C-alpha cells in the first residue's frame, strides 16, 4: 500500500526536528524543570514532592512555557517554507494544500507530544522512584492535558504562519498571541468581574457562576480547570488545619472542557488551511 502523502510530510517535519536537535533540547528542558521543581519547589518540605505536589508547584510554569514552545515550533512552518523557496517545489508535486497543512500539523504535533511525554514522563519516573505516594493516573492526566494544551497553541501558530507575508512578522504575531492569552485576556476578564460585582464582594470569596463561563473562552483557563478538576492537591485549599475542596459550577465537566479544547484545535487548523489555500506562493 502506498503511504499517504501527509504521512510523508509529517515524517519529514519530525526528521527536521530530530536533525536540528529541537526534540532533545526541549525534552531535557521539561525533564529538568520537573525535577528541579519537585526537589526544590516546595516551601513546606525538603526533598522530593509526590507527583501531585509537583504538578501543583509547576502549574504556572507549564501554563506559560507550553504556549511558548508550541508557538516557536509552528510559527514559521508555512511562511518559513514559502520564504525559503521550498514550498514551490512541495506544491508542484501531486499534493493538495489540505494534505500539506494536515501533514505539517501532524508532524509538529507528534514532535510536541513526544517532547512533553518524554520530558515529563522521564522526570515522573525519577520522582516516582523516590516517593512513597505514587499517583500515576493523575500524572498521566496531567501529561495528556498538557499535550492537548500545547496542540491548541500549535494550531494557532499554524494559522499565524499563513497569516503574514514574512517570517519576521509571524514571530511578532506569535509573541502577541502569547501575551494576549496569558496576560491581556485574564486581566480583561478580571476587570470585567471587578467592575460588575465590586471588589468588596469579591474579597469575601463569592465568584459568580458566569465568570467561570467567561473563563471558558480562554484556553489557558480551560487547561487549568482540567488540571484542577483531576489532580488532588490543586482542588483543595489549605484552611487552618483542614482542607476545603474547591467547588465549580455544575456545568464545568471534563467532557465540556475537552470539547472546548478540541474546538480550539480544529478551528485554528481550518483557519490555517483556508488562509493557505488562498495564498499565492
Amino acid at each position: 500500500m502506498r503511504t499517504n502523502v501527509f504521512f510523508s510530510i509529517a515524517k519529514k517535519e519530525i526528521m527536521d526536528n530530530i536533525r536540528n536537535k529541537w526534540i532533545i533540547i526541549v525534552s531535557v528542558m521539561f525533564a529538568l524543570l520537573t525535577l528541579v521543581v519537585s526537589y526544590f519547589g516546595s516551601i513546606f518540605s525538603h526533598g522530593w514532592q509526590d507527583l501531585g505536589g509537583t504538578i501543583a508547584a509547576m502549574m504556572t510554569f507549564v501554563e506559560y512555557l507550553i504556549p511558548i514552545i508550541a508557538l516557536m515550533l509552528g510559527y514559521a512552518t508555512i511562511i518559513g517554507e514559502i520564504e525559503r523557496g521550498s514550498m514551490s517545489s512541495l506544491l508542484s508535486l501531486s499534493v493538495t494544500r489540505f494534505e500539506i497543512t494536515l501533514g505539517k500539523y501532524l508532524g509538529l504535533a507528534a514532535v510536541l507530544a513526544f517532547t512533553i511525554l518524554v520530558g515529563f514522563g522521564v522526570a515522573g519516573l525519577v520522582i516516582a522512584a523516590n516517593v512513597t505516594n505514587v499517583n500515576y493516573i493523575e500524572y498521566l492526566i496531567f501529561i495528556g492535558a498538557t499535550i492537548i494544551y500545547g496542540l491548541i497553541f500549535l494550531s494557532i501558530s499554524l494559522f499565524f504562519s499563513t497569516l503574514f507575508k514574512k517570517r519576521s512578522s509571524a514571530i511578532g504575531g506569535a509573541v502577541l498571541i502569547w501575551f494576549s492569552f496569558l496576560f491581556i485576556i485574564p486581566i480583561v476578564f478580571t476587570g470585567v468581574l471587578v467592575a460588575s460585582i465590586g471588589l468588596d464582594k469579591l474579597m469575601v470569596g463569592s465568584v459568580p457562576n458566569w465568570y467561570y463561563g467567561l473563563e471558558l473562552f480562554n484556553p489557558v483557563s480551560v487547561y487549568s480547570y482540567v488540571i484542577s478538576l483531576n489532580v488532588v492537591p490543586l482542588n483543595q485549599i489549605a484552611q487552618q488545619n483542614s482542607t476545603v475542596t474547591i467547588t465549580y459550577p455544575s456545568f464545568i465537566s471534563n467532557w465540556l472542557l475537552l470539547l472546548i479544547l478540541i474546538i480550539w484545535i480544529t478551528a485554528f487548523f481550518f483557519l490555517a488551511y483556508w488562509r493557505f489555500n488562498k495564498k499565492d506562493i
Partner: protein
Amino acid sequence: MVTQFVKCPTCKTTITISGEPGEKIFLTCPQCNQKGAFTIPEEKSAKTIGTNSATIEVNGLTKSYNHFKAVNNVSFTVNKGEIFGFLGPNGAGKTTTIKSMLDLIHANTGTIKINGIDVRLHGKEAKKYVGYMPEKVAFYDNLTALQNLRFYAEIKHAPTEECIHLIEEFGLGDTGKKRVGKFSKGMIQRLGMARAIIGNPPILILDEPSGGLDPRGVILIRDKILEMKKKGTTIFVSSHILSEIQEICDRVGIINKGVLVAQDTVAELRKKLNLKPQIIVTLDRMTSTIENEVKKLPGVETVKIQGNTLEILCDGAMKAKVIVAISSAGGNIVNIQTKEPSLEEVFMRYTEA
C-alpha cells in the same frame, strides 16, 4: 540506454538493470539467488505520440497585483515531446506564468491544462505529470541530499532507490551526510534538476535552470534536458539568457511586460523579422571592383569595408554566390566567417518595440 528498477518476485528486493529498449536481460537476484529474465519495454515510438496533442495549454492567462498586470492575456501551447523556450527579460512575467501553470499562484482569469486536465480544478491529478525546477531552488537545509530527494520520491510514489542514482548522476555522490544547508549554489542547482526528474515525469517545467551555475554545470543541465527530450519528455524551459536556449529549443515564446509578443520556431521568427546572416570575408588586398561586384548582387543588403575586410549582410541563399563574386573579381580570400543571426537579435527587436 535505459535504467529500470525491477522487484524480485520471491523476496521483493529491488534490482537495478540497464540496457537498450526491447533488450531481454537475464539476471540473478542478489538476495535470494532467484533467476529470471526481464525485457526492457520499448520506448514509445514517434507514431504513438500525436504531434498535435498539446500537453500544456495556457489560455487567456491574466494575473494582476493590485492594478499591475504581471501577466496579461497570455496563451500558448506546448506540444508533446518538444522543447519550448520561454524567453523574456527579468521581470517580464515568466515566473508568474510558470507559477500559475502549477497553481502556486492563483490566476485571475484563464485556463491552464496539463495533459488536458484543468490545473485549477484538479491540481492534484494534473501535477502528477510534472517535474518542476523553480527559479529559486531550495531544499530542507537540515537534511542531506539523499534525505531530501527521498522525501520527494516518496510523495511522487517513485522508487526511492532512484535517488541514489540521481545524486551520483549529478555529481553529488560524495556529499554523504553533509546537510544541504552547507551546499554551494551550484550544488543546490544541480540537486534541483535531479529533484525535477525524479520519477521520470512526462512534462518538465524548468524556470531558469542554469541560473547560478558554472559553465560545466550549464552543460550538465543542457545535456540532461536533451537526454530527457530523447525519452519523449515535453520540456518547458524559461530563460533570459538566449544563447543557451536557441540551440536546444524547438519553439520559443517571447514575453515582455506581461504580454506574449511572439510564439514560433526559432527559424520562423528569424524569417519573419527578416534577419539575415552576416559574412565576414578577409582579403589580402581590397579593390573597388570587388566592392562594386558584391554590391551589385541581388539579395545583398549592406556591405561594410574595414581595411581588407568585407562585412556583408545578405540572404542565406546568396552566401555562396557572394564568395564566388569576390573571387571572380580578383579577390584573394584569406579568411571567411559567417555569423547566423542569433535569437538575441530577435529578442531585442521584440522586447525593444
